[in-house]
């Protein structure tokens, strides 16, 4: 395991995506130096400093802390307070709302380590939450603490750190239940050795879950009760969302080697507007209510629609992002359920798109792809 741990460092220190505590080590150090508020046991920073780390600000010594999360201050405060009251934190939200991002930075700021991570999948076994065995050692020497392979959660308990569980609702229900004892009793018995691991002060757990996906393992109310829930919203203003989308599109276009597009902002704005209006069920001017389709229409999907449109424009068009390039992508994102969503989409096209000034091209493109 240690053989792999520092491959990135060995390969020249240039990891594709460095961990938060490494990428923002300077900021964390500056915050710790300036932080004179009381810190809960084994916290690297006080709750105030953690909130500042996430929301950004300027320290007394002039160090600029970049905002990690752009959104309501209230949510970050609730999240940090929850961790400070040693209650587990559940971050909910539709895909693309920075749940993982927030959880990673919270763990990095609170414990200085964001790597104690359990990735939830339909196949996550109980060993990933509790402990496993090194079977060679187990067979050779019998059960002993040397043969035991602790899970990230177990290590976090022993060392008083913050553990992270990604996509909690994808984990099978019986494995989820293993968390209940850990969260309520704060202990993990190892009957094979006649021992138990008791959580040290400072241990806590941040889970993320998707509240829009269907067919996932709904949390039992017993488990749910052990979490405080914070719902991360979609971007609040169209401006913020256009900003996020165009920045991400630019980055992705670069990594996909798409030729740069002269002026896509108008189309990006249009896609974001369509997504927001359908998602919110009301037009931007707030005057007309609309039905919402069954898809999530998250910012992440807007990004992929625009990237797809760019690829179309670059390879098959004249290089300028045009309504026709995005219309098919928008249709695909909106109409997930072929019967109900199609009506929603047609109503939207006929009652909103058609009437709007300067949207004639888009209307025609929509009619074309809808037909």
């Amino acid at each position, binding site marked *: 395991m240690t053989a792999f741990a520092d491959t990135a460092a060995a390969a020249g220190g240039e990891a594709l995506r460095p961990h938060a505590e490494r990428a923002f080590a300077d900021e964390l150090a500056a915050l710790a130096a300036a932080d004179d508020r009381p810190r809960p046991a084994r916290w690297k920073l006080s709750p105030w400093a953690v909130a500042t780390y996430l929301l950004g600000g300027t320290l007394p010594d002039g160090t600029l802390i970049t905002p990690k999360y752009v959104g309501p201050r209230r949510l970050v405060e609730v999240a940090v*307070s929850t961790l400070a009251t040693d209650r587990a934190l559940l971050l*909910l939200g539709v895909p693309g709302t920075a749940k993982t991002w927030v959880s990673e930075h919270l763990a990095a700021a609170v414990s200085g380590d964001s790597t104690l991570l359990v990735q939830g999948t339909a196949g996550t076994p109980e060993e990933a939450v509790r402990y496993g065995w090194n079977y060679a050692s187990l067979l050779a020497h019998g059960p002993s603490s040397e043969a035991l392979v602790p899970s990230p959660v177990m290590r976090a308990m022993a060392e008083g750190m913050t553990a992270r569980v990604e996509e909690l609702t994808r984990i099978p229900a019986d494995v989820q239940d293993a968390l209940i004892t850990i969260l309520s009793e704060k202990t993990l018995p190892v009957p094979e050795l006649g021992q138990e691991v008791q959580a040290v002060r400072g241990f806590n757990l941040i889970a993320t879950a998707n509240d829009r996906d269907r067919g996932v393992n709904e949390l039992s109310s017993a488990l749910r009760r052990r979490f405080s829930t914070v719902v991360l919203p979609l971007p609040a203003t169209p401006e913020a969302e256009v900003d996020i989308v165009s920045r991400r599109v630019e980055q992705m276009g670069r990594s996909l080697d798409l030729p740069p597009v002269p002026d896509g902002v108008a189309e990006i704005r249009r896609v974001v507007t369509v997504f927001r209006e359908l998602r919110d069920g009301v037009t931007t001017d707030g005057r007309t209510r609309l039905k919402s389709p069954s898809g999530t229409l998250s910012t992440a999907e807007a990004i992929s629609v625009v990237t797809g449109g760019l690829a179309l424009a670059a390879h098959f068009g004249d290089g300028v992002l045009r309504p026709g390039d995005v219309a098919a992508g928008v249709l695909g994102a909106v109409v997930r359920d072929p019967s109900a969503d199609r009506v929603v989409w047609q109503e939207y096209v006929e009652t909103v798109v058609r009437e709007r000034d300067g949207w004639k091209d888009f209307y025609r493109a929509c009619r074309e792809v809808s037909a």
Partner: protein
Amino acid sequence: MLLGVRHHGPGSARAVLAALEAVRPSAVLVEGPPDGDALLALAADERMRPPVALLAHAVDDPGHAAFWPMAEFSPEWVAIRWALAHGTPVRFVDLPAAHSLALTERTEGAPQEQDRGGIDPVGILAGTAGYDDPERWWEDVVEHRAADGTLADPLAPFAALAEAMAALREAYGDGGHPRDAVREACMRLRLRAARKEFGEHIAVVCGAWHVPALAARTTVAADKALLKGLPKVKAELTWVPWTPRRLARRSGYGAGIESPGWYGHLFAAPDRTVERWMTKVAGLLRGEDRPVSSAHVIEAVRLAATLAALRDRPAPGLAEATDAVRAVMCDGSDVPLGLVRDRLVVGGMLGEVPDRAPAVPLQRDLARQQRTLRLRPEAQERELELDLRKDTDAARSTMLHRLRLLDIGWGEPAAGRGSTGTFRESWRLRWEPELSVRVAEAGVWGSTVLSAATARTVSDAVSAASLSGITVLAERCLLAGLPEALPVVMRALADRAALDADVGHLADALPPLARSLRYGDVRATDTSDLAKVAVGLAERICVGLPRACAGLDADSAGRMLPRVEGVHTAVGLLAGAVPADGLRERWAGVLGTLSARDTVAGVIRGRATRLLLDEGRLAGEGAARLMGLALSPGTPPADAAAWIEGFLGGAAAGGMLLVHDERLLALLDAWLTGVPAVMFTDVLPLLRRTFSAYEPGTRRTLGELVRRGRGPDRAADRVEVSAPGFGAGLDEERAAAVIPVLQLLLGTGTGTGIGRVAGAGTGPERAASR
């Protein structure tokens, strides 16, 4: 002793109570209109339950009114109750309502909102202390501190506040409230009078802003000079019940508060405010079947306390409590939180006022209107014919419609006598004694018939359950001439229409809207919004109708049929009344889709075909082709019969169509004779239903036609072009004979050719529309 308070501040109320208990003044003066002094005693009545409001209105203009709302936790209310309970004299000291009403200009409709221009003293203090939210600063510094109940000197906070306000007033002068000088002069004069009467030992409860002015030393002459020549109206005052929701309104005491329920809790809870609040929230959520355990309550209290610490606040406030409830008890969702906000943070308890309170102004307004419109309430039932083109009659109709909206059933609309014009209305009037009670009940909605009907309609629109309910409301709203309620109703209508997935509901909603647009024409109301909604609705129906008509069984199809017809009529009305480009064409397109789609029930297909034919959008050959398709041998006879019912039934002219169009009759004849014997009994009831609706004359003609069979000169397949359904060729001589009469009817002058006349007469619809 000057007790400066924040209106509706629970902390101020506690402090006032403590101060009064400690000082025990010989008289209590409260900021409020002195013309209401006589009503003060009612506050002690056991049937009086806050929130209530002191209402002042001009006698000859009940719509011109001002309110002084009071909740249980209002310092003014606390002071009044304390004084009444201790037998201490209590007076109001502000400017009399007679003057303040005269000073504020009249605004139409809604009750008078007082001028709120100028600076916000609390906001400035909060900004100085580094708070962005003045409410929060006040809570932290004054309300929370005082709520501890551990103050050594009950007067200390008032002294500190007075000092701060004095500094503010030095810096800002009158702070943009020019009328305050007059009000304060009046307060000082009354304070002097009270001193003369009760001695120096007097407590004054007023807004903190006024304290420095009351403490200032001025001469009587100067104060009197300020009050000289003030305009005056005849004002009447009474207590009216109030709701927590309306406490948030800025009127009278100018503190609009967002969370009366929370303030009430702060005032009522003896200790452990947050713990008690969380328990209340848990109780509410449990009552709504949400599993909330005591463990949840514990965690929520802890989280609220930590949040307050993180935000550097001395104690958890409403914001912290709400965040904690959301995260711990509501799984981060705002939906159950909305319930908490509605029921607890705002609260829904309606105030009560004893019967002894003077009569509501609505009654007076009604009486006044009855006089001006010369429409006396009579117990005897009588009929009233109104001609809406006359001003008085239009006003009468408007008033009766408004009363109906208020559930005051004085007049009921009756079927018109003979006349069908939209400018005529018939009413049956009858004044029952219990209607007076209804008027009193309706008094909570407003002080004039107009404002009450507006408020009631708005409330109804917001809470209406069904789409058609709102369209009916919109129609009545137009009839009753409520311009201020209309946007709200329109909004509710648009919202509900957008969210209603059932095309049937939309189709039900469209015809009343189309009708309303025509009323709008008659009554000269502005209906552009309505038109927009109606067109939007029609567009939605166009999108969804083909799908909604697919795969219906006979019963559902039967229910859908009148809707399709209703929409057809409504689209016709709409296309004439509003600028809706291409709506008619789109609708025709939808009918075309309906008539051609196999999954659509036969009866609807048939009717769609028929409507198209009547519109003149289907040449005779087209109708024959569609009929041939529908009656082809492969189609189950029951379906074909349903198609025939749709195509030929209903409309009275259905039979005439067969009489005149031999091809259709021949097709029908051929189909009917081809129906197998076993199926015949199945289709018979449908056919009977269709044909029995025809007039006897038509039926007989049809029978004769069928018996005669196809004569050689009536063959349907003649090639000569003619108007569809008519015999070939034109007997020019006979046709020319009717031209003078037709010209007279059509109002056209000269030069109409025969061809044009014949063209105008092709479809029954066109003929009827002329």
